[in-house]
């Protein structure tokens, strides 16, 4: 950061800035993103403090924090927050554990490794509505599903997944989509592990388990934290999988925060109430985002 080499202008990119006005190049992107971020958010905030129901248009006016008060009194909110937590937590644990194990496994040499890797990442590229419907119909259907058929072969009563274990069913579907994501990121990270370091540890007599816990896992720690944060942001508002499988039910068994807001706002048309829920979602996401931005910015400084 010091200016030790004034005779080499090429090594001082900052000097060039004054020669070119970059504002017309940068400004359009900043402007549209700024509008995109601020206008809807301001509207959500505004709707959340007024009485606004599309079904009763004559009821209007500022209500202060009334929507929030109703929301916090509503057991549906707490159920949905709990469901969100269960969903995000389980999927995170499953994807990180399997993602790490798969990364270690598929980093080994074996015949057809390239093709096997492609098969494992494939689910991540399948659109969520297709994944959810394939699982719901062909895998988990209590009468015609493959799992039911396997169970009947073993003489077990077939499971009606979406009636009896709806949350588990949704978690399985979402984990199937996101394990490949964790795997892809962690495989990339594991490949940058220094082979000399591994070799040295092996010569020192480290067994495979010690290698994993003392060398591989510490090396992967930052990639794992990145996986956790990015997944959390997407998983906090999982929607499509619930939309095509359970529609939040039975009852409120699979209603997460995203589904609650959708059903209150766009099915019951209570805009004010739904907006208060929206603000809660924004606050939750921002807590995660702070950590992610911090990790990425550390990386930006290293570069």
């Amino acid at each position, binding site marked *: 950061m010091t200016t030790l080499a004034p005779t080499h202008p090429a090594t001082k990119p900052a000097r060039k*800035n004054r020669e070119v006005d970059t504002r017309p190049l940068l400004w359009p992107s900043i402007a549209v993103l700024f509008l995109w971020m601020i*206008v809807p958010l301001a509207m959500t905030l505004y709707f959340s403090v007024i009485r606004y129901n599309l079904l009763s248009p004559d009821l209007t006016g500022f209500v202060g924090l009334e929507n929030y008060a109703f929301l916090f009194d509503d057991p549906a909110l707490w159920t949905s927050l709990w469901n969100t937590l269960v969903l995000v937590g389980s999927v995170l644990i499953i994807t990180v554990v399997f993602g790490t194990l798969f990364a270690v496994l598929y980093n080994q040499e074996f015949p057809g490794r390239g093709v096997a890797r492609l098969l494992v990442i494939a689910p991540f*590229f399948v*659109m969520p509505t297709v994944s959810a419907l394939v699982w719901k119909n062909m895998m988990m259907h209590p009468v015609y599903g493959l799992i039911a058929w396997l169970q009947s072969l073993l003489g077990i009563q077939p499971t009606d997944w979406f009636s009896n274990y709806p949350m588990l069913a949704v978690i399985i579907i979402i984990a199937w989509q996101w394990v490949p994501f964790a795997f892809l990121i962690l495989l990339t990270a594991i490949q940058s592990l220094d082979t000399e370091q591994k070799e040295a540890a092996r010569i020192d007599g480290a067994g495979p388990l010690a290698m994993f816990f003392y060398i591989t896992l510490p090396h992967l720690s930052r990639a794992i934290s990145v996986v956790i944060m990015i997944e959390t*942001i997407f998983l906090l508002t999982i*929607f499509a999988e619930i939309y095509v499988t359970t529609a939040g039910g039975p009852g409120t068994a699979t209603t997460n925060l995203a589904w609650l*807001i959708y059903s209150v706002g766009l099915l019951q048309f209570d805009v004010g109430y739904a907006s208060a829920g929206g603000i809660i979602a924004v606050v939750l996401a921002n807590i995660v985002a702070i950590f992610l931005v911090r990790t990425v910015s550390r990386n930006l400084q290293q570069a």
Partner: protein
Amino acid sequence: MSDSRQKLWLTILAWTIALLVFFPIFWMALTSFKTETEAISTPPSLFFVPTLDNFTEVFARSNYARFVWNSIAVSFGSTLLALAFAVPAAYAMAFFPTKRTPSILLWMLSTKMMPPVGVLIPIYLLFKNLSLLDTVTGLLIIYTLINLPIVVWMLYTYFKDVPGEILEAGRVDGAKPMQELFLLLIPLAVPGIASTGLLSVILSWNEAFWSLNLASSNGAPLTAFIASFSSPQGLFWAKLSAASLMAIAPILIVGWMSQRQLVSGLTFGAVK
């Protein structure tokens, strides 16, 4: 030696897992060539006479072609638009960095953190008032905005790797910034721009929050069309499979080809 036996077990384990993970996709692909009766038969039929009827019927019965077109228009349109915004911005930040550049990049990233459901209601009402509900234009605008931060980030990382001397030489020869951008940088960075575009296309193609909420028929892409099969009436698994297979196959192939670039794009360069 036990080494070769270990390798055999490793191979078996790795392949078993890979086939199990991939199985639902394989089964869907298989089902798309069955008749509707075969699709739901128990025990499941593994050997059958493959038929292409489902594919022809999907095209004949529904407006499948329109949904395909909508998906193509929305994902490629939004990608081109995002690139048009992002290429100049990434160029400015990569080659003329200021003290504020890192903060601008981080701020762009932070817009990506906004949960869509937090702004669903106002966007829905705005779209309703502007008659953008259920239109390709509406989704195209949203997708451009949600992918713009990732596109800027990826391009920024690629542009950083372009040797500055080449642009420097052009500048000495009197190239204006616009000429420098279009005649020097873009030709040099075509591979980077292409893989950024691919990621953006993949993400838009599979996006299923806004498409389900903002489009239902005329402007609906494939994600929303497939969701319409979720109604309990009738079991059209073979047709669902045929429609799904066509919807995912192109993106699966593109995704397989560009997995490396996807990693750095999806993690904002934190994992390379």
